[in-house]
């Protein structure tokens, strides 16, 4: 067994787990943080994306032992008691998620992007989401929401929503 102690969403947590335990399993089974999802278990789908030491990673491809002593941010640590993170607010506002299973991973990827690049282009957003598969949405409303959130974080106006109705 290995002993791991890491900071999860600002809180120091410890566990003793078998060496083959992945960070994803540690978070879900030991710490009951089930926001990160198991979609493929080999790093293709990105549903397990969490932020480790400031960088988004596939928690299914990281052993708990590797995460020992590191800082992990999961979707559960994004909002606070006063308000939702702008990404969470706008993903709701734009209907960016449908079945929602890919959502926590997508939002964490977007969070990491905006931390580094406060004003990303559509292409930069697409690149940041390249590791998060979604089968429901075609990604369009996610990209809209991420653009919007970047505006809020920069203290600017959110661009108006494209409506499907064109007045003839």
């Amino acid at each position, binding site marked *: 067994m290995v002993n791991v102690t890491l900071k999860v969403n600002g809180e120091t947590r410890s566990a003793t787990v078998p060496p083959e335990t992945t960070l994803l399993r540690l978070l879900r089974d030991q710490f*009951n943080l089930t926001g990160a999802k198991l979609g493929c278990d080999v790093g293709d789908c990105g549903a397990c994306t969490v932020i480790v030491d400031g960088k988004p990673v596939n928690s299914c491809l990281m052993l708990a032992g590797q995460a020992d002593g590191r800082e992990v941010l999961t979707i559960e640590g994004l*909002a606070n008691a006063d308000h939702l993170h702008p990404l969470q607010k706008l993903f709701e506002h734009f209907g960016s998620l449908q079945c929602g*299973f890919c959502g926590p991973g997508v939002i964490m990827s977007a969070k990491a992007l905006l931390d580094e690049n406060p004003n990303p282009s559509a292409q930069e957003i697409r690149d940041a989401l390249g590791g998060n598969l979604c089968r429901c949405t075609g990604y369009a409303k996610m990209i809209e929401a991420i653009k919007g959130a970047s505006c809020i974080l920069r203290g600017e106006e959110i661009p108006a929503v494209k409506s499907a109705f064109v007045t003839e």
Partner: protein
Amino acid sequence: MPDKPRVIEKPDVLEKPDILKPPAPAPLVTFPVEVVVPEGRQQTPAVGQRATRADARLHGLGQTKYIDDMYFPNMLFAKIKRAGIASARIKSIDTKEAEAMPGVIAVITGRDIPCNSFGPSLKDQPVLASERVFHAGDGVAAVAAVSEQIAAEAIEKIKVEYEPLTPVLDPLESLKLETPGVHAPSANIYGHKLIKKGDVEKAFAESYRVFEGTFRTQMVEHVPLEPYACIAQWDANGRVTVYSTLGRITLGRADVARTLGIPMSRIRIIATVVGGNFGGKNEIRAEPVMALLSKKTGRPVKCVYTRSEEFTASTTRHPLVMDYKTGVSKQGKILGRKIRLVLDGGAYCSWSETTLGKACILSAGPYNIDNLYAEAFVVYTNKTMTGAMRGFGAPQVCFAYESHMDDIAHALGLDPLEFRLMNAFEEGSISPTGQKLHSVVVKESLLRAAKRFGWNGLGDGNGTGVKA
């Protein structure tokens, strides 16, 4: 982080009480105490509003509870042994070694299932294959253990002896009557549909030109981001509660009742929130297996498919082979159309009958055609079973009829838009099945799309050069 390496001995279940006990209580998950309701949800009248989804906030907070996010005290984890061979007779299944493993609580095979067959129309699919394997994804045994890891190791210890049989893989081969039946002794054609209108041969004879084309489509997977998951909990009253990623709980309950041989009133199915369906979660998979494992162990049992099981042990989209023949007048009016569709049904019927019907009915396209002959067959092969998938045959036939339409338009020197407008349904048009259609807006959609896109007439098949 200590500098010296940790020396640790190999883990052993018996010394691993931690995986037998439920996880630590959840830490406080923060979310806004003040719930601000988005404007759209508060508007009246409600219809037409861009109202946000009721589940959107929980999705965004990662608080939506999918089945794999649920845990019950003493819960066991199940894995299913897959055949890995497309067609075979099962000679023997030896589960002794698996049963003897520490941490393994129960093992079952097809023989343990009271009524080992199900299906939305034909009941041709075993819950677990016991005599015959019809495709490589068939389950042959299931293990419930104290951890997923142990269950996974246990199914490797299950020894199955097969007598391999030659698989039928090509739908056109399968169509031939001399081809050995996948589900012998009957032939492989298990569904047929015919739509006749007017006299198609006469129409061809009177046509200015007649066009023929053959089109094929591939087998496609739904890829819901959430793999199939199920938890079954049998209680002391002989009632079983099944949490399952099912889009159709009513049918699901009927199938579970049938396979377990117990009254529906003893079964409760809860679908919670499903992480994507697209047609792949419209019938039961391992629900009866989990129910029986729970009954046998007296403990809740959870099963989550691996991504590869989601591919090999779930339904897929029917591959089609589509022959089209169309006669047109000099002006471009469609006078007659003859269609033959062959659907590759895979190993089991599943939703093939619905797919067959919709594919055949829709195969002529949204066009007024007085003389039509459309015939469709669905055949068994030893491939992954095909079933419901977004479109039920429509994406396949649309690919064929719309490619065919463009070929004809180009050959006649007509703008594909004009050619379609000339033949498209309008309010009150009669469908291939003789139904009078209402609220028809094919032409409107064509014109609106063309306007929005900036469509400008017939292309020359040479495109316009753009910088590489």
